[in-house]
């Protein structure tokens, strides 16, 4: 019987884990520890509606307003600094300790920065509400061009939001094609072209060298960009620093089994968790998507409560899914294109910027990327979930107009 459960990370995965624990009938002590001062909020709007409007209602997460009714001890603005697995305690940065029988690791990911471009004096990273507030304030204060470094999904959204606000935008990407690892070169090129369609100065295959005293940013191709505001969007890394040496296996995330269990009585969920996904050939995955944090947070809460009674055959094997809003386009992806050996365009054309790209691997549909084709992405997701043969998926998709 678990009497005390601690959740480290008061964001999407932690919130859904905690609320699921209560919904599933856990009535013991529940402590949620979160390094940020804010109660759980929604991150995706930080690069979209919040950045565009500054309206903090946009980041409200459903149910959080009633968080005091759940009998949770909230330790917000407090960071967990050490895990003593044998003693079953988590040490916090104020020197206090939280004892637990069950632990949920939901610390997400920390934003990466560039040594050549330290944050401050007009240079921003974007992960938290505090980051987004600072970025907005600086955009208001400093008129002029915006330089976005990194054309991943978040960099691309910031570029799009700034462009739509009428700013000149330079988007720099070190790779020759944006998003190549996620969607392949052909579709990555379309994602890049979307920015050029909207007047973004997209510079591919060039990295940032540094910034001079006047604030100008030097690029590897010898040019300089004189930007009023710089946003660094070069990805995130799982927030596992405090778990090194704890006895848990850390390898680009907290390594879990197929059920989200990292050690007896310890589960992980969301951006921090790495686990083998049975649906994708048992590939080890770490998924940095909103939907996964919800799904896995709820799943591991049930897993934790069940303890040894859990049926080991019930594994966490979802079809990852995410969206990204850029200009008037909805980009969505279901599944994983990693290792894909086939690709097919359906439901439109690349030129219209309205299409689905299907990806096959070993004779199966494994991923679908869509631009303004939400319905077909939902359908694809269902097909991927049932390991639909590639030829059948192609035939079905041929009817998508």
């Amino acid at each position: 019987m678990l009497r005390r459960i601690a959740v480290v990370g008061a964001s999407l995965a932690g919130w859904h884990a905690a609320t699921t624990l209560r919904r599933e009938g856990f009535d013991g002590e529940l402590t949620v520890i979160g390094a940020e001062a804010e109660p759980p909020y929604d991150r995706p709007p930080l690069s979209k509606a919040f950045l565009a409007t500054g309206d903090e209602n946009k980041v409200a997460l459903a149910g959080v307003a009633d968080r005091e009714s759940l009998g949770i001890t909230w330790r917000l603005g407090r960071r967990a600094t050490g895990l003593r697995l044998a003693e079953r305690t988590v040490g916090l940065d104020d020197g206090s300790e939280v004892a637990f029988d069950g632990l949920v690791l939901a610390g997400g990911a920390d934003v990466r920065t560039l040594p050549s471009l330290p944050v401050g004096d007009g240079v921003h990273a974007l992960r938290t509400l505090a980051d987004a507030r600072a970025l907005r304030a600086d955009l208001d204060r400093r008129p002029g061009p915006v330089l976005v470094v990194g054309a991943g999904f978040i960099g691309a959204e910031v570029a799009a939001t700034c462009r739509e606000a009428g700013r000149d935008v330079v988007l720099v990407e070190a790779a020759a094609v944006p998003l190549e690892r996620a969607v392949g070169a052909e579709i990555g090129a379309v994602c890049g072209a979307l920015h050029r369609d909207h007047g973004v100065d997209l510079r591919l295959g060039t990295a940032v060298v540094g910034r001079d005293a006047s604030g100008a940013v030097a690029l590897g191709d010898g040019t300089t960009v004189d930007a009023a505001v710089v946003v660094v969007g070069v990805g995130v890394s799982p927030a596992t620093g405090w778990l090194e040496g704890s006895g848990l296996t850390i390898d680009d995330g907290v390594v879990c089994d197929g059920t989200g269990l990292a050690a007896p009585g310890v589960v992980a969920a969301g951006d921090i968790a790495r686990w083998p996904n049975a649906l994708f050939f048992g590939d080890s995955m770490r998924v940095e998507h909103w939907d996964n944090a919800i799904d896995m947070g709820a799943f591991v809460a049930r897993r934790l409560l069940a303890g040894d009674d859990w049926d080991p055959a019930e594994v966490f094997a979802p079809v990852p899914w995410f969206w990204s809003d850029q200009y008037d386009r909805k980009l969505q992806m279901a599944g994983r294109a990693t290792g894909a050996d086939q690709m097919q365009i359906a439901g439109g054309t690349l030129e219209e910027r309205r299409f689905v790209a299907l990806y096959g691997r070993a004779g199966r549909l494994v991923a679908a990327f869509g631009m303004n084709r939400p319905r077909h992405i939902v359908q694809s997701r269902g097909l991927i979930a049932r390991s639909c043969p590639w030829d059948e998926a192609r035939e079905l998709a041929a009817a998508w107009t």
Partner: protein
Amino acid sequence: MGWRVVVDMDLCESNAVCMAVLPEVFEVRDDDLLYVLDETPPDSMRAKAEEAVARCPKQAIAIVEA
């Protein structure tokens, strides 16, 4: 007790997440708009409807007790 599914169309961005959860009630059509097929689904769909509420990235769906 009856209940109803209500979608705030000003918030909805037709990403069809709800359709993945409960296709009997939510449908995004070719025009890329969301249609609520059944505003008063049977109680057997209540849990799924609640899941759709939680999963909607725009928090556009509400369940209203009639």
